[in-house]
């Protein structure tokens, strides 16, 4: 496509301006984080004497190692469980097409638009009643359930497009349903399962509301939940708050830079299918 020179520059200027709009907030908190703790600097101002120690202070105050371990624990208990049970359900609904699968699908799709706030109150009382309130499990179990509508829908979309000849051929060779699932379709479903894994990991890492309601102890929360608590304590110490925010952002940003292609395509596909 041929494009006029003036249009080319106008377009590039607009893009550069929007990129600045996206990046400047990060630069601003980075510069602020280097100011002496407790002072109130201005938005974009490189300090005379950069206080790198702020990152160490924030690291200790936010109990970063504990918070990190807690997040990893929650992600590792939520994501594999979500992948396994949603793949199984997606397989039964999309490929085996068991009687009642339409009803089941409808039931799960119904949950797609349900906001977390809509059901958080009973979850709180339910967890108090069964005695898991204020533990990491209190975040993990509802999260697995809340991912089910999307995850089942996602896996079903994959299985429903698999050619039926594949399953029939295996049947002729005497494969049981379990063989069909475990030996034929799981190896073929690696790509959608991987995307689902990326998505649920990011969502879990960033989960805030469930942490806020269900867990009082910040060190039992995910990173985002811990950050919320940190903000509560250090709202008036701007440099320290910025340093803490940066520390909590670093793992997400690293993962994004490493896997940006997969993450972008997973998030896009996820929303298109959802």
């Amino acid at each position, binding site marked *: *496509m041929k*494009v006029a020179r003036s249009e080319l520059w106008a*377009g590039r200027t*607009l*893009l550069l301006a*929007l*990129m600045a*709009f*996206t990046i400047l*907030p*990060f630069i601003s*908190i980075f510069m*602020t984080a280097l100011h002496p703790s407790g002072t109130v600097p*201005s*938005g*974009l101002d490189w300090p005379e004497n950069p206080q790198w120690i702020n990152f160490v202070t924030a690291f200790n105050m936010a109990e970063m190692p504990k918070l990190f371990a807690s997040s990893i624990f929650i992600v590792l208990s939520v994501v594999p469980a979500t992948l*396994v*049970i*949603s793949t199984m*359900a997606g397989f*039964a609904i999309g490929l*085996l097409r*068991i009687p009642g699968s339409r009803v*089941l699908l409808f*039931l*799960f799709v119904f949950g797609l*638009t*349900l*906001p977390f*706030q*809509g*059901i958080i*109150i*009973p979850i709180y009382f*339910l967890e108090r009643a069964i005695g898991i309130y204020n533990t990491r499990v209190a975040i993990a179990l*509802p999260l697995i*359930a*809340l991912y089910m509508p999307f995850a089942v829908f996602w896996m079903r979309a994959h299985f429903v497009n698999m050619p039926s000849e594949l399953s029939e051929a295996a049947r002729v060779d*005497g*494969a049981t349903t379990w063989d069909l699932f*475990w030996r034929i379709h*799981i*190896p073929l479903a690696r790509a959608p399962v991987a995307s689902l894994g990326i998505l649920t990991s*990011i969502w879990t890492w*960033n989960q*805030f*509301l469930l942490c806020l*309601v269900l867990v009082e102890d910040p060190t039992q929360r995910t990173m*985002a939940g811990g*950050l*919320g608590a940190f*903000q509560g304590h250090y709202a008036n110490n701007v440099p320290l*708050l910025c340093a803490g*925010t940066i520390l909590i*952002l670093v793992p997400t*940003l690293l*993962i994004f830079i490493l896997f940006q292609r997969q993450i*972008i395509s997973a998030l*896009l596909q996820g*929303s298109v299918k959802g």
Partner: protein
Amino acid sequence: MPAPYRPTMNSIETSGNRPKTIENSRRIFRSKRVRRETFIGWLFTLPALFMYAFFVLVPFLMTILYSFFRWNGVGPMTWVGVKNYVSVFQVPNLIGTIFNAFWLVVWFSFIPVCLGLIVASVIHRVATGTFGLVARTVLFLPQVIALVAAGIIWGWLLALPGLINQMLKAVGLSVITRAWLGDFHWALPAVGMVGVWVLLGFCTVLLLTGMTKIDPALYESARLDGASWVHEFFAITVPLLRHEIGVCLTVTVIAALAAFDIIWVTTAGGPGNSTSVPGIQIYILAFTQRAIGLASALAVMLMVLVVIVILPIQWLTRESEK
């Protein structure tokens, strides 16, 4: 990693026997097999179904149930009928949250989708190479970070000594500088800006993916007929991106109506109730004021609201061939 499937000796024998079996017994065999398979199929769905029922469907029904009672969370529950719903409609602070939520839709949904359409078509036209790729990645960045972090970052940017006011002063607009999040009139648009920042990249990249699927020949022929950029945009790009626009609208409208994280860390609903949305009010009612029934009624209304708004969007923008 599971091993590739290999038929066992046993299964080869059965399949070898098959042609000899007579029609009738085959049918019986099959119906038995079908029943067994159905049973096994249902077993496959059980774990997902159990988790979903226990932590989503039951709480969903419980929310509806709670909404008909007056309850402080520990004492006895009193049946009050639809009184909680009446209260939601009558108390200005409660019904106001719903108006605020719709106001937020303009910022979280309308602006990112419109701007995203423009930005995507700009990238599509003038930045197909590395520059476009970099722009895409950078704009997408806010989408992966926690909303809490986005809120904290912008809480500082919009503060009195923050970057926004600094820039306004630099261009000679110091008259309008203020603590944006503490201002009754400006707090909601300020929170809305955070939404634009978070959602613009998502909309841009999604719409861009749709644009690359449009046949370039369409644009070529339009240009031969002397169509301008604006013509092209409204006659080709927008109609053919109907499905993608629908997806963007759905995602962003839900993000607006069910907003919580960003608002909680920036304003917590204040000043007054000027940025209070249903999500925030549900939390405050249920967990600080212990008005479980009222909070549940608002929660039910929020869920109904989301469905009412999303259904027409889905219906209008569905791909016709499917």
